[in-house]
C-alpha cells in the first residue's frame, strides 16, 4: 500500500516482547502529528485510533483523500484544539498504514508475513507506541484519548504507564471484550477467511485480494456502529433509485446500497490480514484479567485524571460497560468523571458531529490544562 507516499515513521530499535512471547525489533511505527509541542513539552496529547483508523486524525488523509477520522474533534479551535495541543497519533502495530504489520516482510524468511505475523494485543500496541514519548522527549503527556479500540488503548496505557499521562479520556469502550463483541468480530474474520482469495493469508504474494470477504466483514461491522433508530431515520424502507421492488437480489433498499458502498470503499484502504489481527487484539483485551479480575488494581498506581464518556445509543460498547470502568476507579478513590451523551448515532457517535460530546471534551481538556 501507498509506497509512493512518504509516511512519518519511527523505527524502534529496542526489542519489544509481545504477549504471545515473540520478540520484535527494528520495527516501524508510522505516525502523524498536529499542532506544535511547546517548550515545556507539557501540551502533548496522544490519540489512539480505533479498529479501522490510522494516524491521519484530522485534515485530509493523504491516502484516502477524505477527512481524517476525527476531523470533528481534532483541529484548530476544535474540541482537541491543535492551536493549544500537540496531537500525536500513530498507526497501531498490526495495522496497514505503515506500522509493523502483516503486510511487512518477515526478516527471517524475507517473505511477506501474511498470517505468519505474530498475534498482537492491545498491550503490545500500547507498548510499541510508548516509544513515541521518548522520540519526542516528552516526560509526561497532557492527555491520552481515544474511542472504541482507542479507548481500550487509553486504559491499557494508563495501567502500563501510571505516571505518564495527566488526563485520560476513554470513550465508548470497554475494559473487557464481551461475548457479543467477540462474536461480531468472529463473523468478520470468517467472512475474510471464507473468501478463497484470502489464500491462508498469502494473497499479496499470490497477487489476489479477498475483497469480497473484507467487504462483508465491513458491512456487518458497520451495522454495529449505528443504532436501530439512526438507521430507521436515515434509510427506513426507502428504495434505491427505483419505484418498486424488483423481485431479485439487487440492492432494492437504500440501506443495502449504502452497506455495499461502505464495503467497497473500505477494501480500497484496508488490508484483510490487518483486519484479522486487529480484531483479534480487541477480542483478547481483558484488562481485569491482567490483574486477577480486579479492574481497580489496573489503576492503583496512577494519579491520572479520568473522564469517561459513553453514548445512549451505543449498543456495541454500551453505557454500563463504560460505567464499570468508572466504578472500578471510584473504588480506589481515583479522580474520575463520567458523562453519558445523548445521541441517536450509535457507537459511531464519537467520530461524528455530536455537539454535547465535543463540548464536554473541550471543556474537560481546557480546564484540566489550566488547573494543571
Amino acid at each position, binding site marked *: 500500500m501507498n509506497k509512493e507516499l512518504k509516511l512519518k515513521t519511527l523505527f524502534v530499535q529496542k526489542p519489544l516482547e509481545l504477549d504471545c512471547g515473540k520478540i520484535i525489533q527494528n520495527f516501524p511505527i508510522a505516525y502523524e502529528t498536529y499542532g506544535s509541542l511547546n517548550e515545556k513539552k507539557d501540551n502533548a496529547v496522544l490519540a489512539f485510533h480505533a479498529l479501522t483508523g490510522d494516524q491521519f486524525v484530522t485534515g485530509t488523509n493523504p491516502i484516502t483523500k477524505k477527512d481524517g477520522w476525527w476531523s470533528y474533534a481534532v483541529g484548530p479551535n476544535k474540541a482537541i484544539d491543535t492551536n493549544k495541543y500537540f496531537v500525536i497519533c500513530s498507526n497501531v502495530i498490526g495495522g496497514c498504514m505503515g506500522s509493523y504489520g502483516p503486510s511487512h516482510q518477515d526478516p527471517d524468511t524475507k517473505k511477506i508475513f501474511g498470517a505468519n505475523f505474530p498475534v498482537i494485543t492491545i498491550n503490545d500496541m500500547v507498548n510499541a507506541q510508548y516509544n513515541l514519548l521518548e522520540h519526542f522527549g516528552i516526560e509526561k503527556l497532557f492527555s491520552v484519548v481515544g474511542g472504541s479500540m482507542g479507548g481500550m488503548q487509553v486504559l491499557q496505557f494508563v495501567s502500563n504507564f501510571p505516571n505518564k499521562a495527566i488526563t485520560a479520556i476513554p470513550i465508548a469502550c470497554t475494559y473487557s471484550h464481551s461475548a457479543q463483541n467477540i462474536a461480531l468480530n468472529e463473523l468478520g474474520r470468517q467472512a475474510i477467511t471464507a473468501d478463497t482469495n484470502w489464500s491462508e493469508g498469502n494473497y499479496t504474494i499470490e497477487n489476489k485480494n479477498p475483497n469480497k470477504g473484507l467487504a462483508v466483514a465491513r458491512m456487518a461491522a458497520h451495522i454495529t456502529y449505528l443504532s436501530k433508530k439512526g438507521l430507521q431515520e436515515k434509510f427506513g424502507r426507502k428504495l434505491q433509485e427505483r419505484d418498486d421492488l424488483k423481485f431479485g437480489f439487487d440492492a432494492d433498499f437504500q440501506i443495502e446500497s449504502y452497506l455495499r458502498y461502505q464495503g467497497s470503499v473500505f477494501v480500497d484502504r484496508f488490508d484483510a490480514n490487518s483486519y484479522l489481527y486487529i480484531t483479534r487484539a480487541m477480542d483478547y483485551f481483558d484488562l481485569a484479567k491482567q490483574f486477577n479480575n480486579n479492574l481497580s488494581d489496573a489503576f492503583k498506581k496512577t494519579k491520572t485524571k479520568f473522564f469517561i464518556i459513553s453514548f445512549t445509543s451505543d449498543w456495541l460498547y454500551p453505557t454500563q460497560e463504560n460505567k464499570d470502568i*468508572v466504578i472500578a476507579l471510584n473504588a480506589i478513590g481515583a479522580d474520575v468523571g*463520567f458523562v453519558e451523551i445523548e445521541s441517536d448515532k450509535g457507537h459511531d457517535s464519537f467520530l461524528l458531529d455530536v455537539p*454535547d460530546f465535543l463540548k464536554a471534551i473541550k471543556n474537560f481538556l481546557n480546564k484540566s490544562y489550566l488547573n494543571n
Partner: protein
Amino acid sequence: MKNEFKVIANLIDKDRRVLDVGCGDGTLMKFLKDNKNIDCRGMEISKSKVQKCIEKGLTVIEGNAEKDLIQFPDKSFDYAVLSQTLQAFLNPELVINELLRVGKKAIVTIPNFGYWKVRLHLLTKGTMPITKTLPDEWYNTTNLHMCTIKDFVFFVKSRNFKIFKSLALNNKNVTLINNSNLGFKNLIADLGIFLIEK
C-alpha cells in the same frame, strides 16, 4: 451563591474530601474547591447540569444517587452533601444510609414542610402549598417524600444517628435548632440544614 451553600460551606473544614450528591451545576463544589481547597466529587442525574460542572472544571459523575452511590467505598469522603433532594428519592432512608456509609459525616438540607407559609397556604387555600423552596405544582413536582424539620430530627434520632449541628434557615437568617426550640424553628424556617454522622 445562595445562602444555603454558604451555610453548608461553613460546616466543612478545609482540605477535605467532599462528595456532593445531586451537585446541580456545581456552584457549591466550585466554591468549596476555590475557597477551602476541597477535593470535590459530584454526582448529578441531569446531563445538562453535568455539562455545566465540566465547564467549571469539576469532577462529576452522571448518576442516580439511589443506584450509583454503591460504587464508593465506605468512608471514602469526609463529607457527603445532599442539598434539597432527599424528598425527591423513592427511598430516602436508603439514600441517607448510603450518605452515612460513603461519608464520615453527611450534610443534609431539607425544604421544611412545617414552615408557616406552607401551613398557612394549606390551611387557608386548601391546595398544595407553593413557596419559594417548593415552587412546583402537585402534579409536576419531583418531590415524593416531603417532611418537616421535626420529622427529620425524629427520623435521625430514631435511627440513632448523631446530629452534630441542626440549623434553621429563613432567608438570610441562620439559627441553631435545639430540643427546646424545635417546635418554633419548625414553624419559622423554610429550610433545615443538618450535619449528621452514623
